[in-house]
C-alpha cells in the first residue's frame, strides 16, 4: 500500500516538474545577443515626486562607514527638494539595508529597480558589494552611482563612479612618496579585493620607479592581531608603509605601531582607507602626523565646502566630521541632477546619453568636478593630507588640477601588464 502511494507521489512530482519546465522554456543565451530580454528598467514618473534608491549597509561591519554616506546623500536630497527638486519633481528617497552582505545588496538593488521603479540608486561601499550589484544594474539597465574610491579595472555602462580610481589616489600617493625621497615601502592590507589589487599596482609602479617593496602582508578583515606584522615592518627598515587596512584593524595596527616605537617621522604610514570619521574612532594620539591620500578633506578650502560642512553639521551634529566618501556621495546626487536636467528626462538611456555627451560639471565641496563621458568616472584632484592632533586632516600636497580618470591605467607604461 505504502509503496504504491510513494510511487504515485513520485510520479506526480516528476510530471509536475516536467510540465513546469516544458512550459517555462525561455530565451537561450545565444538569442539574447540579438534581442535583449526586457526593455530595461522603467522609471516611475507618474506622481508629483520621483523615487531614488539609497543602498547602504545600515547593519553589519560596514554600517559605521556606510551610514555616513547615506546621511550625506539624504542631505543632498533635502537641499535639492528645498530648491525645487529635479525637473519640477520632488525626490523621494527609498532607503534599503545591504547589511554588509553581498547577496543582500543584489537582492535589494533588484527590489529598488523592479518594485520601487527608482530613477537612480546611490550607494555601495565595498568592491564586493559593487561586484554583486553590477550584473543586476546591467541586466535591468538601471543606474548606480558609486561614491567610494576603489581599485579600478572596471567600467560598467550602468555605473557612475564618483569616487577616485587608482590613478587619482594611489598613483599620486606614490608620486608624493617618491618626491619626498622615500625609496622603499612595506605593504600592509586587509585580505580582500581592494588591497590585493592596489598592491599589485604599487608593485608595478615601484618596479618601474626604482622603489623597493620590502614586504607585503595581509590580515583577515576584522583582524586585531598585528604584533607579527608590525615586527616585520620594523625589521624591514622600509622608508614608508603603504596601508590598505580596513575598519577596526587600523585601531590595532596603529596601537601596535606606536608601541613598537615607530613614528610618523621615522617611518610614515600612508593610508588610503582612513578618513576623518575613522581618525575619530582610532584616536588621534596614534595617528597624529601620519599621511592619508584622498580627494577631499573637511578642511579643503572653498565656498562650496564651507556650505557643505555647515549644512552637514547643522543637520547631524557639530561633532560629526565630513569625509571623502561622504562628499563623493553628496556630489553624486547633484551630478545625477545635472544629467537629468540636461537630458530633460528621467529616462535612464537619455540620462546616460547626456553624460556621455560630456560637459556635466558641478561645483563640489572638493572643487569643480567633471564627469568623463567615456569612462563614467569623474575628474578629481588628488590630495595628500597629514593627520593633525585635532583629528582633522590638513592638506600637504595636491595634484594642482583635476586628474583625468584612467580606471585601466592605460596611459601609464609601467601598468601595461596589469589589465
Amino acid at each position, binding site marked *: 500500500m505504502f509503496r504504491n502511494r510513494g510511487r504515485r507521489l513520485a510520479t506526480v512530482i516528476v510530471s509536475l*516538474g516536467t510540465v513546469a519546465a516544458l512550459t517555462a522554456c525561455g530565451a537561450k543565451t545565444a538569442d*539574447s545577443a540579438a534581442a535583449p530580454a526586457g526593455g530595461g528598467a522603467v522609471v516611475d514618473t507618474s506622481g508629483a515626486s520621483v523615487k531614488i534608491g539609497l543602498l547602504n549597509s545600515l547593519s553589519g561591519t560596514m554600517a559605521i562607514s556606510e551610514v555616513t554616506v547615506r546621511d550625506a546623500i539624504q542631505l543632498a536630497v533635502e537641499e535639492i527638494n528645498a530648491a525645487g527638486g529635479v525637473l519640477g519633481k520632488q525626490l523621494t528617497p527609498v532607503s534599503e539595508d545591504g547589511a554588509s552582505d553581498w547577496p543582500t545588496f543584489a*537582492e*535589494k538593488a533588484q527590489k529598488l529597480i523592479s518594485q520601487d521603479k527608482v530613477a537612480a540608486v546611490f550607494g555601495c561601499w565595498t568592491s564586493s558589494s559593487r561586484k554583486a550589484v553590477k550584473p543586476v544594474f546591467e541586466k535591468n539597465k538601471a543606474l548606480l552611482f558609486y561614491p567610494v574610491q576603489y581599485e579600478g579595472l572596471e567600467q560598467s555602462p550602468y555605473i557612475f563612479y564618483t569616487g577616485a580610481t587608482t590613478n587619482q589616489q594611489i598613483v599620486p600617493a606614490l608620486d608624493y612618496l617618491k618626491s619626498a625621497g622615500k625609496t622603499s615601502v612595506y605593504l600592509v592590507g586587509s585580505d580582500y579585493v581592494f588591497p590585493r589589487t592596489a598592491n599589485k599596482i604599487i608593485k608595478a609602479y615601484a618596479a618601474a620607479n626604482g622603489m623597493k617593496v620590502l614586504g607585503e602582508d595581509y590580515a583577515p578583515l576584522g583582524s586585531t592581531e598585528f604584533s607579527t606584522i608590525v615586527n616585520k615592518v620594523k625589521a624591514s627598515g622600509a622608508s614608508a608603509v603603504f596601508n590598505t587596512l580596513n575598519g577596526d584593524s587600523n585601531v590595532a595596527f596603529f596601537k601596535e605601531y606606536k608601541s613598537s616605537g615607530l613614528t610618523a617621522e621615522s617611518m610614515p604610514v600612508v593610508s588610503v582607507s582612513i578618513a576623518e570619521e575613522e581618525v575619530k574612532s582610532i584616536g588621534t594620539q596614534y595617528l597624529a602626523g601620519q599621511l592619508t591620500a584622498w580627494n577631499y578633506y573637511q578642511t579643503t578650502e572653498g565656498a562650496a565646502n564651507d556650505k557643505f560642512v555647515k549644512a552637514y553639521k547643522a543637520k547631524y551634529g557639530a561633532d560629526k566630521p565630513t569625509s571623502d566618501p561622504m562628499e563623493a556621495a553628496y556630489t553624486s546626487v547633484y551630478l545625477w541632477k545635472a544629467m537629468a536636467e540636461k537630458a530633460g528626462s528621467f529616462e535612464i538611456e537619455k540620462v546616460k546619453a547626456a553624460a556621455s555627451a560630456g560637459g556635466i560639471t558641478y561645483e563640489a565641496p572638493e572643487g569643480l568636478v567633471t564627469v568623463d563621458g567615456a569612462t563614467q568616472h569623474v575628474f578629481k584632484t588628488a590630495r595628500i593630507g597629514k593627520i593633525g592632533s585635532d583629528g582633522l586632516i590638513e592638506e600637504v600636497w595636491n595634484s594642482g588640477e583635476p586628474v583625468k580618470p584612467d580606471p585601466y591605467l592605460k596611459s601609464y607604461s609601467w601598468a601595461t601588464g596589469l589589465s
Partner: protein
Amino acid sequence: MSPRVRALAGFGITAVLLFAVAPLLLGDFRLGLLAKYLCFAIVAVGIGLAWGRGGMLALGQGVFFGLGGYAMAMHLKLADAGPGNLPDFMTLYGQLDALPWWWVPFQNPIFALLATVLLPMTVALLLGLLIFRRRVRGAYFAILSQALAAAFAILLIGQQGTTGGTNGLTDIRGFFGYDLNDPVNRRMIYFIVAVALLAMLGITWQLMRSRYGELLVAVRDGEERVRFLGYDPANVKLVAYVVAAGMAGLAGALFVPAVGIISPALIGVVPSIEFVIGVAVGGRASLAGPALGAIAVAWAKTALSERVPSAWTYFEGLLFVLPIVFLPGGIASLVSLVRRRRAAAPPPAVDQRPPLVREGAA
C-alpha cells in the same frame, strides 16, 4: 494508516502551494526571492535529519553549501566565458594565462553537476569517518564543523586570482544555455528548486520512517546502548551527515542560478549558524519544521529589512529568541500542542522528545 495519508496530503498541499499558488500570486521579483528561500529550506531539511534526528549539531553546513555552489558557479562562469576563454575575474585579479588545473574538469557540464552533490558528500564522508570513528560528539563536533566553515571561507578569500576572493563568483549570465536575464527562465529555475525541495523532503521522509530512521533516533538518544546492541553508531551517524551534506551541496548549486552569486559571505560561520537557526525556529525533529523554519526566517529577514531598514536586526534577533524560549519544539510543535490542549489531556510529564519523534515520523 492515518499518518501516511496525512503525510501524503501534506506533500500534495505543498506541491499545489509551490507549483500553482505561489507562481500565480507572486511577481517575478518575489518568486525569485522564494526560490532563494527554498534553497535555504533544502539545507534545512538536511540539518533537520542530522541534528534533529541524529543529534549532530552541524554548525558548518556552509562548507557543503559552498562546495556545491562553487562547483556549479565554476561551470557556469566557464560556460559564460566561452570555450578557450578565462572567466573575467581571473584576468583582472589573477593575471593568469591558463586555467588552473582544478578548474579544468568543471568545463564538463556532467562532471560539474555530479560534483555539486558528490563533492560535498565525499568531503563529509572523509570528515565523518575521522570524526565519528573517534567518537567526537556534542559541542566538540559543533565546534569542529564551525572551524571548518571558517577555514574554508578564509581559504577562498586568500585565493583571489582563482576563486574571486571576497567578491566570490558573480555575474552569472547563463544556465546550461538558457539566459538567466529572461524572466521565463528565472521562473523555470524556481520550478526546478521547488521540485528539488519536494524530492529532498520525500527522501528524508523515507529515511525517517525506515528502520534506519529508528536507529538514527536511537543513536541520538542512547549511543552506548545502540553500540551494545551490536550496531556501529559511527556508520549510522555517517549516513545522516553525508546525506545532509549532499542536500546542502544541491541547495548551493541551485542557489547560484537562482540568485546569481556565490561568495565566501555565504559559507562562513555566520551563514552556517543562520541555517541552523531556521531549523531551530521551525522545529528540528520534524520533517516539515526545518524547511518551514528556514523559509520563515529568510522571509522575515527580507520583510523586516524592507520595512525598517535601520532597526530590523533587532527584530530578527527577537524572532530567534522568542520561539526558542517559549516554543522549544519549534513552529512544528504548535500542531501537537494545540491538539494536546484540545484533547484536554495533561501534557506528558517527562520531556518533549518522545512525542516529537513520533509526530515527526508520521
